[in-house]
């Protein structure tokens, strides 16, 4: 019984993390049809910015309670600088190219950003333990959990609800949905699709950076941080269906629970099961669990 509970709680916490990491990827794919490898770079950028800025401010005597706002602020800051630069500077010239070629372009950008991060922040690790340690922990039956994990879950719920609200109830969101359904017609109806792309890329990347920023206090921030996030979020998004928001949530929950179950019952299979699920979903429902059939084009 206790182990089942532990599996569930660990699974939910891991799902929350996965969801925040992957949701921006599905948004960008939905609107722009780009499988964006730089997503992992923005995760790493968010983590680095958060760790260095929060660390510096804490050293100057900032009250630790403010650090949560600073985590968010640093993710925002770094994304607003880098994402528009990439979208306006490079990606916008590439939209005419094939889906697979754009994927390769984002892979090239990922390689560049990977080293840019090393140039800016160096190669030695960053630690900020305060936001994590400040909250203490709580006991559930015999298990101890840090309160900080609840913040992660909170951030995930906030991101999911916020994005759903944005898409359904705001002007920008409704325009975005129109672009998702048909770019050409949207353009003909006078929607500034270019601006929508810029907004989507920045916003999607911001979500990745937020994921990185809020993970930073729980890990040591080292080079290569984003590399694993890329494949993991690919797995989550593919399981749910590329471009589907509820799909990303379902994918995150599936991967989260499967992984936590395997850690508790069969630790050898930890990584392998995630990709097994991904391959199975691709094998039986290639377009993911939440997907609409698409006509074959001649």
């Amino acid at each position, binding site marked *: 019984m206790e182990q089942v509970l532990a599996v569930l709680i660990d699974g939910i916490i891991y799902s929350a993390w996965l969801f925040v990491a992957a949701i921006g990827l599905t948004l960008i794919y939905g609107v722009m049809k780009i499988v964006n490898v730089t997503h992992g770079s923005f995760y790493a950028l968010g983590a680095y910015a958060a760790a260095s800025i929060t660390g510096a401010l804490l050293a100057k005597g900032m009250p630790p309670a403010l650090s949560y706002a600073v985590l968010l602020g640093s993710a925002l800051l770094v994304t607003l600088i880098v994402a528009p630069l990439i979208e306006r500077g490079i990606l916008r010239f590439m939209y005419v190219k094939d889906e697979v070629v754009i994927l*390769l372009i984002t892979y090239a950008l990922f390689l560049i950003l*990977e080293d840019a991060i090393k140039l800016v922040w160096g190669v030695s690790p960053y630690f900020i333990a305060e936001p994590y340690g400040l909250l203490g922990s709580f006991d559930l039956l015999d298990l101890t959990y840090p309160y900080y994990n609840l913040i992660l879950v909170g951030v995930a719920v906030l991101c999911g609800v916020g994005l759903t609200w944005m898409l359904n109830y705001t002007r920008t969101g409704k325009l975005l949905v129109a672009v998702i359904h048909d770019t050409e017609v949207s353009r003909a109806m006078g929607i500034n699709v270019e601006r929508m792309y810029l907004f989507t890329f920045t916003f999607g990347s911001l979500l990745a950076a937020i994921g990185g920023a809020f993970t930073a206090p729980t890990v040591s921030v080292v080079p290569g941080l984003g590399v694993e996030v890329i494949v993991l979020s690919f797995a989550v998004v*593919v399981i749910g269906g590329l471009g589907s928001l509820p799909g990303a949530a379902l994918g995150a929950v599936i991967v989260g629970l499967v992984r936590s179950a395997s850690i508790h019952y069969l630790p050898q299979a*930890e990584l392998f099961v995630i990709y097994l699920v991904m391959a199975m979903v691709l094998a039986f429902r290639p*377009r993911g669990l939440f997907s609409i059939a698409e006509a074959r084009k001649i």
Partner: protein
Amino acid sequence: MSAGHAPRTLALILAVILAVGPFAPQWILFLLTIALAKGLVVLGLMLLLRCGLVSFGQALYYCIGAYAAGMLGRYLGIRDLVTLMLAGMAAAAFAAWVLGFLLARYRGIFFGLLSLALSMILYGLLLKTEALGSSDGFHVLPSTLFGVRPADAWVRYAVLAVAAVAAFIAALLVHRYLDTPLGRLAPAIKDNEIRVEYMGASARYAIHVKYVIAAALAGLGGALAATTVGHVDPEMAYWTTSGEFIFITILAGTGSVIAPFLGALIFGIIHTVAFGLSPNTWQMVLGASLLAVIVFLPNGLWSVFRRRKAA
């Protein structure tokens, strides 16, 4: 394929490598052998790319080939280089034949993502398999050639010579294959698959065949890399390894069977030189050159040669 004299050029390159090899320093021999191993993998990716398919998981077969060669030495004591290479090739080809029934149905981004998932499954498995050294991998015993162990000073040259001959044969066969009806179907599949089927050909079958050939080449390259480096580890199946292969494929282009080896050599040189000069920015150099090639030379470096010939 306009490169009608590819076989002659290949033979010339082989002769130069075999003749100059004994006088070259050890590190150049090593660089060349690794470039040949990677070139073999890329040769296979080129076949797929000609159909418009990009596999983000070719490291799967590279790793299978490498581990197959390593395990034969480790458990059965087989150390003959040629046997190991053939074994790596066979293991990878068999795996691809089985998985091909599934993958040949996929196109575009989904082909890439499914092959990625499959390679990550192997990575996840190897990472946790203690008998095979988990994340550290294991050492591959130095190999012998037809039962003889070459003298230490000649090991690198011997391996290079075998690699060069293997790459020569592989490139020649692929060159021949490209001229067969099945090989010529590739650009047609890329352009319009439905028309291919109306013509009476099966795109799925053609892709399956190419997929198995590509995997066999990757397995051969993997076995070669394993004996050259003397070590295998799960990183060989990781997605960044696949990314490296795709990088070389795009860099080289699909213009000729020589292009993959040239691309792999250039990659090896960029890697060695840029990494030596500045270990923290060499990936940036790679990324920037990939971008430049995609934007300015969409058909790869090989198109430079071709344009000059046309002019």
